[in-house]
């Protein structure tokens, strides 16, 4: 139940953020600082989420099959593979490494 609450709050905030752009005078949001923060925040959060999902296990740092997924995804992206192919490469690499008995 608790999770439902946070899901709904997240949904409301997502919609309100989008809506703010339509109602706040453009001058306010067009400030270079706000634009920069929105952009760097996106990059920083995605980088952080990538790392957390690759090496964090609770409050520990571990190297397991997920590192193989990270490398496979990097190679797929470098080869300009589409999103879904990248995701499948990551899953396949992790599954394969586990099958071989690692991580």
């Amino acid at each position, binding site marked *: 139940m608790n*999770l*439902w609450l*946070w*899901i*709904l*709050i*997240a*949904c409301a*905030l*997502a*919609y309100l*953020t*989008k*809506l*703010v*752009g*339509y109602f*706040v005078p*453009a001058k306010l*949001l067009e400030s270079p600082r706000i*634009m*920069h*923060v*929105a*952009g*760097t*925040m*996106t*990059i*920083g*959060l*995605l*980088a*952080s*989420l*990538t*790392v*957390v*999902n690759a090496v964090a296990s609770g*409050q*520990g*740092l571990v190297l397991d099959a*997920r590192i193989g*997924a*990270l490398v*496979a*995804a*990097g190679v797929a992206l470098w080869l300009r593979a*589409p*999103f*879904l192919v*990248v*995701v499948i490469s*990551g*899953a*396949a*690499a*992790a*599954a394969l490494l*586990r099958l071989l008995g690692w991580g």
Partner: protein
Amino acid sequence: MSGGPAPLKLRESPAFKVALSLSIATGLYGVSFGALAVASGFDFWQTMVLSLLLFSGGSQFAFIGVVAGGGSGVAAMTASALLGLRNGIYGMQINAMLRPGGWKRYVSAHVTIDESTATASGQSDPDEQRRGFWTAGIGIFILWNIFTAIGALAGDAMGDPKQWGLDGAAVAAFLALLWPRLRGREPWAIAAACALATIVAVPFVPSGVPILVAAVVAGVIGWFSHARMDEGLEPDVDPYAEKHRREHGGRK
């Protein structure tokens, strides 16, 4: 909608075609969102509500990613909200471009995401901008939700998510969302700084919080940097990839 001089057939509109193929490409990866959400412990309807109401790929993946890592609901909500900040900028851009009035504003706000904004901004004719925005926005909304449902049902049937490497799929998904935004030296530096801050923070703070530490680092960098204006504001799937590749061997 607005009667231009020679009403273009929808099928002949370049923006419509781009938006349609983009909708299919983006919609398809809703499968990975649905499957990952279920593997992370969300039930079918929680997964669907995220796709129907939150409707912003990066923020949805962030929400389930934090929970999957053992983070709290508050941390998941905060990461998702911060990652969605750029949609406010998109809203402002679309409002300036299309000037939707009345109830249309409330609908267009909901479908204001990376892809619909990028499709519209890639066109110069106002009618084409409008077609591109609405086709991509509504097309992605429909397909994204259909494929989320398929992914969630498939994920439910799959059993042990680790055996299928679904935790590896999550890593790949986040890297794929980050990748198109790493153009130039500064984005790489920001990504590296935030990745490092995350790793340093993991042992010391509860799960989910390292992501917020990285957000603070990114925010401080953004506040004091003088990089180009649209940094980090690239779509996950570039609607004009072919054109950009032809013109400069990459995006401008």
